């Protein structure tokens, strides 16, 4: 059953709307939408929205009901979704989260810088700079292969144990350094892929205009490469936001550590849920932003394709 009125015949339509048949006729509209077809589309869109909403609400109701009827639910609710516990711990968690934000804000620019420098070093052709190229390749090979948490352990516990003069002993410092080294290797590869994505004809055109190899990279290749890798870089940002929690293994009281302390003092896990909510509150907008940037770039590309 379609439930739709049969589309009206064009003949009946033409009684209401006399439209000059030829677009070349003087006074012909720039754009013209058939009002009947438009009304049909609007009606369909409204129906789709309603059905979608109803379906979603029904699904949530059924699942919610089913979960609340399980025998373990009261205990789960008490342990994970305890209101008083939440109110008691949440302000402390927010406070601790500021450390995560600080780690992120310090690490991210350093990661971008290291990533870009390493990516450029790996594509150097000068024989004099071979050591730099080898070093950059080794760095990426090693740090991309190591679990981030292992790097944090190695640096955070290992380096202070050396008791070197003038080397900071601070857990946050080494935790952040480990994140920077680990993510720097990933971001370097992202940049390198971006550089590779710029067609060789661009480099050729630039060189044919007399630009040196360095000028070509600086003015022609890099700006395009960076633009191409914005979406994957945002993705890595999101990942880094979460991984700031790994620094907790070294002891500094950031949000996960704080939640752990709360949970172990009351044997209630609501603080963990609180910490989770804080992370999600930050990463979801970031994810949407990344999606939006990606969609916008795709749109621009297709526009360029049809031009």
């Amino acid at each position, binding site marked *: 059953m379609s439930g739709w009125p049969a589309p009206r015949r064009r003949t009946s339509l033409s009684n209401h709307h006399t439209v000059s048949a030829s677009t070349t006729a003087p006074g012909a509209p720039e754009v013209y939408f058939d009002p009947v077809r438009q009304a049909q589309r609007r009606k369909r869109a409204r129906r789709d929205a309603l059905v979608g909403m109803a379906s979603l609400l029904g699904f949530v109701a059924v699942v919610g009901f089913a979960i609340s009827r399980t025998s373990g639910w009261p205990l789960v609710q008490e342990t994970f979704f305890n209101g008083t516990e939440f109110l008691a711990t949440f302000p402390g968690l927010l406070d601790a989260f500021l450390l995560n934000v600080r780690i992120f804000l310090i690490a991210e620019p350093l990661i971008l810088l290291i990533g870009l420098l390493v990516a450029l070093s790996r594509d150097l052709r000068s024989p004099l700079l071979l050591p730099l190229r080898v070093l950059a390749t080794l760095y990426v090979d090693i740090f991309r292969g190591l679990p981030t948490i292992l790097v944090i352990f190695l640096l955070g516990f290992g380096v202070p144990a050396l008791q070197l003069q003038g080397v900071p002993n601070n857990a946050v410092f080494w935790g952040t350094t480990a994140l920077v080294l680990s993510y720097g290797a990933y971001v370097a590869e992202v940049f390198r892929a971006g550089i590779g994505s710029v067609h060789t004809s661009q480099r050729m055109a630039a060189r*044919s205009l007399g630009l040196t190899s360095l000028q070509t990279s600086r003015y022609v290749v890099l700006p395009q490469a960076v633009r191409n890798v914005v979406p994957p870089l945002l993705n890595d940002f999101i990942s880094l936001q979460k991984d700031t929690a790994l620094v907790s293994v070294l002891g500094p009281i950031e949000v996960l550590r704080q939640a752990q302390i709360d949970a172990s003092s009351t044997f209630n896990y609501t603080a963990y849920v609180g910490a989770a909510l804080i992370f999600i509150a930050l990463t979801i907008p970031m994810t949407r932003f990344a999606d939006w940037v990606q969609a916008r770039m795709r749109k621009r590309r297709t526009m360029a394709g049809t031009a």
Partner: protein
Amino acid sequence: MTNTLLEISGVWKAFEGHSVLRGLDLRVAPHEAVVLIGASGSGKSTLLRCVNGLETVDAGLILLDGDLDVTDFYTDMDAVRRRIGIVFQSYNLFPHMSVLDNVTLSPCKVLKRSVSDSRDQAMALLQRFGLAAKADEYPDRLSGGQAQRVAIVRALAMEPELMLFDEITSALDPLLVGEVLDTVRELKMGGLTLLMATHEMGFAREVADRVCFLDAGVVLEQGTPEEVFGSPREAKTGEFLSRMLK
């Protein structure tokens, strides 16, 4: 002033064991418009790329203005490319820059001209070729013909002694070929030395001072358009032309 601006002698170039150029000789006089014709794979594009050093040659000499050897291992290729302009089939405009920035980039960075001087010069050139209204547009907003004309202007802004055109109309909608060819006509009137590869036989006939038919990596036949198109000496030339003009 020598009567040869570009002298190509005995140039060989192979790709993966297959020779594209086989001891090719060619001279271009100042202010001359030389058109290269020939089947795909006859070496037209390769020759043009060798002339401004985008490809290295395996053997032979390419002399610019009688003294600068393009093929010399120790020649500063950036210096050569400052004096030779090239425009490609696929425009290759820089998509992240406006039309004006595309044109001023190398005068600013290579010739070290001031930004305002470069802009004035670029605007004058864009004006001359009817592109002034497009100065602030980005390449993705241009038609193919406009994009190709901007590419020509970009090369002209370096004030080259010699301009190379590598099948600059091949990627264009037939309706847009005309405006690009008009631009080339104007350049010829202005006395710029031109070396171009093309498949537009009618245009070659009209604009060329000399037509060279490339076959199997050498110039098999050359002469005025009347000679080559009117009464080709070589059977292969006639064969090619009859196929192209059909």
